[in-house]
């Protein structure tokens, strides 16, 4: 379990990083929590690793224009502990479920997005909130809506010669409420099923994860005083439609659909209550 030989490069500027990526056969190294095991097991063998963790400008964690901007080098644990990030409450709800604290102290928010595990929490949060991902390549910068960012299991809209430089989450507005829940075999495992919810007025947006090859976003219109029992027919139907996986020994397809139906109803009610408060 030792990596095959590779070159390591730590560029001084984003442009330089993009140049290296444009050369081909290169992979971005940020927190390394998913990439390094892949290298060690020789499941991937890029010729060059481009370490972006010290690039100037990628460490920003600020609110600009009603958006929380998280640079590509910002660790999950930094976000979890920052006062600034509380402007996006859903991130705080989701973060305790992202691996374990030790992993979050190394892993980055953008790295989680770029890795695009179907059961990961942060891509679902980004999709639920309608976040946007900033991507830089040789042809310049572009912004990809989070809901279009993940294109399949472990695949994204980022080109091999491009670099995610940051993500912007809309900050919470008055009258919004949020919910987040997942069920995993053990605390810290990837979710068997999970849901991120935002409620505004009678409109609920939910992003389901762990149940398909990417986060699945659906919208529901709520009755004035929604209850779990009242919502279950709708969320169970939604779950039956959304769950698109054969399942595995940890969670069969049917079990994941059961969980999604339950969690969606619970979290919509919670978010609605919060929105009303």
């Amino acid at each position, binding site marked *: *379990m*030792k*990596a*095959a*030989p590779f070159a390591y490069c730590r560029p001084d500027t984003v442009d330089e990083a993009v140049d290296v990526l444009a050369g081909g056969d290169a992979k971005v190294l940020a927190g390394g929590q998913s990439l390094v095991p892949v290298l060690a*097991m*020789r499941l991937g063998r890029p010729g060059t690793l481009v370490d972006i963790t010290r690039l100037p400008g990628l460490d920003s964690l600020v609110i600009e224009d009603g958006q929380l901007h998280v640079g590509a080098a910002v660790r999950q644990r930094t976000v979890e502990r920052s006062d600034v990030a509380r402007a996006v409450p859903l991130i705080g709800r989701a973060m305790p479920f992202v691996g374990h604290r030790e992993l979050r102290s190394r892993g980055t928010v953008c790295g989680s997005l770029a890795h695009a595990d179907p059961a990961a929490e942060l891509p679902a949060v980004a999709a639920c909130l309608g976040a946007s991902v900033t991507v830089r390549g040789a042809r310049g910068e572009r912004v990809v809506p989070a809901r279009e960012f993940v294109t399949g299991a472990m695949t994204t809209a980022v080109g091999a010669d491009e670099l995610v430089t940051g993500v912007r989450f809309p900050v919470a507005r008055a009258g919004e409420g949020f919910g987040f829940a997942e*069920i995993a*075999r*053990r*605390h*810290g*495992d*990837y979710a*068997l099923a999970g849901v991120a919810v935002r409620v505004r007025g009678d409109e609920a947006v939910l992003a389901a994860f762990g149940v398909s090859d990417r986060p699945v976003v659906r919208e529901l219109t709520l009755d004035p005083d929604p209850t779990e029992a009242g919502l279950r027919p709708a969320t169970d139907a939604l779950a039956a439609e959304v769950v698109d996986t054969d*399942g*595995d*020994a*940890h*969670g*069969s397809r*049917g*079990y994941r659909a*059961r*969980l999604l139906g*339950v*969690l969606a109803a619970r979290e919509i009610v919670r978010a609605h209550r919060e929105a009303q408060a």
Partner: protein
Amino acid sequence: MTWTPARDEDAALVTGGGRFVDDLDPLPGTLVAAVVRSPHPHARVRGVDLAAARAHPGVAAVIGPDEVRAAVRPFPLSTTTPMPYLPSGVDAVRYVGEPVAVVVARDRYVAEDACELVEVDYEPLDVVVDTRAALRDGAPLVHPEAGTNVATDRTFSFGDVAGAFARAAHVVRGEYTFPRYSSVPMECYGVVAHWTDGADGPSVECWANFHGPFTMVPVAAGALGVPISRFRLHVPADIGGSFGIKSGIYPYVVLMALASKHAGRPVRWTEDRVEHLLASSSGAGRVMSFAAAVSGDGAVEALDVDLVDDVGAYLRPPEPSTLYRCFGNITGAYDVPAVAIRARAVVTHRAPTGLNRGFGGQQLYFGLERLMDAVAARTGLDVAEVRRRNLVRAFPHRTPTGGLYDSGDYAAALDLLLAKGGYDELRARQEAARAEGAFYGVGLALVVDPSGTNIGYVGLATPASERKPGRDKSGSTEIVRASVDLQGVVTVLLGSVPQGQGHATVARRVAATRLGLPVEQVRVVVDMDTASTPWTVTSGSYSSRFAPLVTSAVIAAVDRLAETVRAGASVLLGVAPDGLELADGSVRDPASGASCLFRHAAGVVHWDPGALPAGAPARLATEGEFVPPEAVAATAEDRINSSLCYGFVAEMVGVRIDADTLEVTLDRVATVHDAGTVLDPVLLEGQVLGALVHGLGGAAYEEFRYSPAGQPTSATFLDYLCPTSAETAFPLVSDHVSSPSPLTPLGAKGCGEGSSMSFPVAYANAVADALHPAGIPIDHLPLHGSVIHDLLM
């Protein structure tokens, strides 16, 4: 805040001061090995091309099938079925992860680079993964020369089984399966091996985190064709856990010794986690059926038991011992006069199995204790009451299979469990939950916990008529060396190869207490060297041997040392040595009250042995042995007392199952243990907790699964889930009764495995009880939300 370590070992371990095999660098110029492994569950090896790997810069040697075939003899097996087992695949590979070649290089990176250059021409063959499928006619054969996948098939009958079933008011049956899982030690396998050729032939010196059974030493030496006297094994003082799993390391010792021979240098191999989960060892999976002949009042009059173990691709010694380790206690906690047994081990295209904490017990009791719940259901009795009616009451108790339960008070332990665990309270919770349509269940398990294996059970795999006269096996002898130095400090040298249990702490206290010394005046050495540490064929750390056997040998050794010290004191005190008492670091004449220091008495023996009375013992270093009584070979009728001591565990689990998510929550775990005399309550509690969590792993999380095509599907920690600290925060009630063993000097029995045997079935019984209203059968593990959902659908 200050911290007082509970054990002598702890301070070093928690400050990075432990010395594990990978910390040792015993020989200069040691090279590093990596192993090429089969990606196929079954394939003919048509050819292997090692040229490119050998030519790779930094590579010293590459060995493959030709080298192994030429130099290694198949390991001696405990049956005659032709299923030859070598440390690597030669003509064929039979499980994913089976070694095929070894690359020796200057470092592990280079070695793994060169592994990719080894070209193996595989011809994939048909695969059999499922235990029942392996039994069927026409199944793909793992070893075609055997003509069958059944490695051993024996039937036994004791007492009037047929009569009991004919008379029975009820015949209760159950079929169960038990999964493969491990203990997942933190440290993986590690070996340093050095082959040298001398004028009188080859020698092998190796370092490994091997912990026995030392029956594997002649097995490994025999495979290499090296006399045992020239096969020298060192085991470091620290092993990072094993729980039996590391007994499976010996084929790698052989493989690395051969690699060293070809490299001309010492070779180190450190197993990584992927290798460990793929191909080290696990407990055997089992398919079993049980039947009980039950009287009208719930008494079990006879059992009929059919056990089929999946031992993987080879019958790797000490398999098929999973079938026989609990032979003497196969009737468990119950007074059952008759039992019929069929015991089979089948080979499949899975990794070989072996020891795993509880060895054979968790498999056996899963069947027996699920069956007792079925007996309760059939007779309409409460699950506690039906067990109580069947308990063994009088000790010593001879079981129909030959076991001799040395001591116990099972009824008292059960009563204590029900009282302290709050059985009635949990039943009330269940009633309340059911009234709300929720799931709540209570599960019990009573298990007899054997310790101090009698190697004689190995003979049972061979029919009595084929067992050779004069070649019987029995016993479990332990030897300990003790010495006293010029300053009166006593050193106790153990060959017990601990893996974290705290043997040094307990042995030190036992020796100090016996010699009347402060613990500071006793030192315990646990590094093992087969050239200098006393050992026997049954040495090792397995079958909870330490408390019953090793401490008994410690006492024998220090008692002899005490004789020497008394002789020295007799010179200083001017009295006869007999009757002198050792206490408070002194030797005292009870008649006069005169005394001298222990160290002065020892000093006389060191400095002035000429002054000793004629014939007085002057052994400054001596050995003591413990040869367990009642551990004799299997009888011609195949009865065997398979262990020296038999402890007891009564366990209760309360579970709540969320009606929506079907998540199972441990509402309460209660456990009562009887390990005879308690040597150290803190260490005992640690063993109880550790075994419980190990059992929880098998009950709810862990399983080595394979796809129907034979590919492992739980070969990383992403899929092989062990309980973590977050899963262990369940409410626990733990207590003890103590029935000292009459067979050990201290009355101590083993205590390292009990709840590993009881928890899996107690949990299953609780889940089954919770789901009783839904009417679904629970006959396997692990049990978690997804499994329950699929059963309910």
